[in-house]
């Protein structure tokens, strides 16, 4: 097993890793906003239910959630609801949406009442106030905690192998069966490059939003 053979194998795994990462991000970012609105709702029952849901999702290990989504429908209905990959995406999206929702909530609630009132007395609608005034300020505030969470997501993708998705680590572990250990350590390089690129990107965003201060 040569270096290139291993690298190619791991790159195939990386494709799965990237796919889980990208799909989770694209779906969980907007879903998180919806959940945050739920937890801030003035309709108390909705707020409570949302908060309990977020507590459960954040309180149970993601690995367990992946297993539950994949196996439990099979026990109940006799047939699985999702494919292996579908289960991973469903569990990851729900899990990350809950974490994102708390970051959004913190960001939205940190905007002073005066900003809303200024918009109101200028005759703006609630929607205009949210999108034209509040949102940009929220984005600036939540960028650092979001970067953190998104970087964690890169590495959490490794949990997918618990239901036999062959992502980077699983691809490396397959070599271990042949007595080859080094590919496992080699995967760290892939993660480091991935996270490195993300960090650069977030740094750029933060710099871009530095043109004003609150």
């Amino acid at each position, binding site marked *: 097993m040569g270096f290139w053979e291993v690298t190619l194998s791991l790159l195939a795994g990386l494709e799965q890793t990237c796919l889980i990462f990208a799909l989770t991000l694209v779906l969980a970012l907007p879903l998180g906003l919806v959940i945050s609105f739920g937890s801030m709702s003035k309709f108390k029952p909705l707020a409570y239910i949302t908060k309990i849901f977020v507590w459960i999702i954040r309180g149970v290990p993601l690995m367990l959630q992946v297993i539950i989504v994949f196996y439990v429908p099979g026990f109940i209905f006799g047939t699985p609801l999702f494919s292996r990959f579908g289960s991973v995406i469903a569990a990851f999206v729900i899990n990350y949406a809950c974490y994102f929702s708390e970051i959004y909530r913190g960001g939205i609630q940190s905007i002073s009442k005066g900003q809303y009132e200024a918009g*109101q007395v200028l*005759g703006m609608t609630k929607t205009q106030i949210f999108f034209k005034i509040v949102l940009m300020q929220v984005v600036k505030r939540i960028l650092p905690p979001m970067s953190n969470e998104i970087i964690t997501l890169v590495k959490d993708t490794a949990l997918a192998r618990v239901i036999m998705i062959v992502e980077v680590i699983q691809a490396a572990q397959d070599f271990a069966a042949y007595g080859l250990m080094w590919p496992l350590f080699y995967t760290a390089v892939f993660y480091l490059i991935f996270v490195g690129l993300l960090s650069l990107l977030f740094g750029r965003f933060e710099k871009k939003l530095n043109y004003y201060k609150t």
Partner: protein
Amino acid sequence: MAILEVQNIQKSFGKNEVLKGISFELEKGEVMTIIGSSGSGKTTLLRCLNYLEVPDNGRIVVNGEAVFNSEEKENYTEANIRDLRLHFGLVFQSFNLFPQYTVLENIMLAPTLKVKEGIKNKSIPSQEKNREMSCIREKALELLEMVGLSDKVDAYPFQLSGGQQQRVAIARALALKPDILCFDEPTSALDPELTVEVLRVIKDLKKTGTTMIIVTHEMEFARNVSDRVIYMRDGLIEMDGTPEEVFDLSKNEHLNKFLNSGNL
């Protein structure tokens, strides 16, 4: 006819009765200051005029049109409150400029959104758009010149002093051409030297005939700029008169005590 009639406004927060029945009239072009100690209800009154609070009772009439009537409270929708509140402008104690926008954008934002909405619901023909937009820009630049900040058009709020920010906030409120401009302690967050520049702008506005209601703790300023002074105490108007009547001739015990407390 009075431009503004406020009739028996009452407002409670829980058991705390903040306004116990406020009534006054204001003539067009008149400048009225409201003085009184903290907790007397001055700010709540201004917030009621601007729909930031909904009074429990009373009527507010602008130019003969009832803009608020507590008996019809249930009938107000978000949309007509938006229209009605534009009779009033409000300048906040803490400026509340939008930090992500430049000075010019801060002033143009609300009028621009209004025009865009007008085009969407066809109350403004779409070929008028460019003309309307350049009108808004011109008006904004004009207002900035009036408040003496023509050189700060492209600055962001964090680059300005408190006094400059407050002058931008005044221009922003004026851009929507309110009938009555309200100020909620506009200089309380400012150093004395910055206070002066804001007060100068308010004096200039008086010369142009702007109708204003000013809640302030600057007694000297209130005396100089006002046509009318209202002294509020415990949610009621205790004195209502010209600056001379209130500051010099009053025999009201509470008022004199209040006025003297600042001159120690």
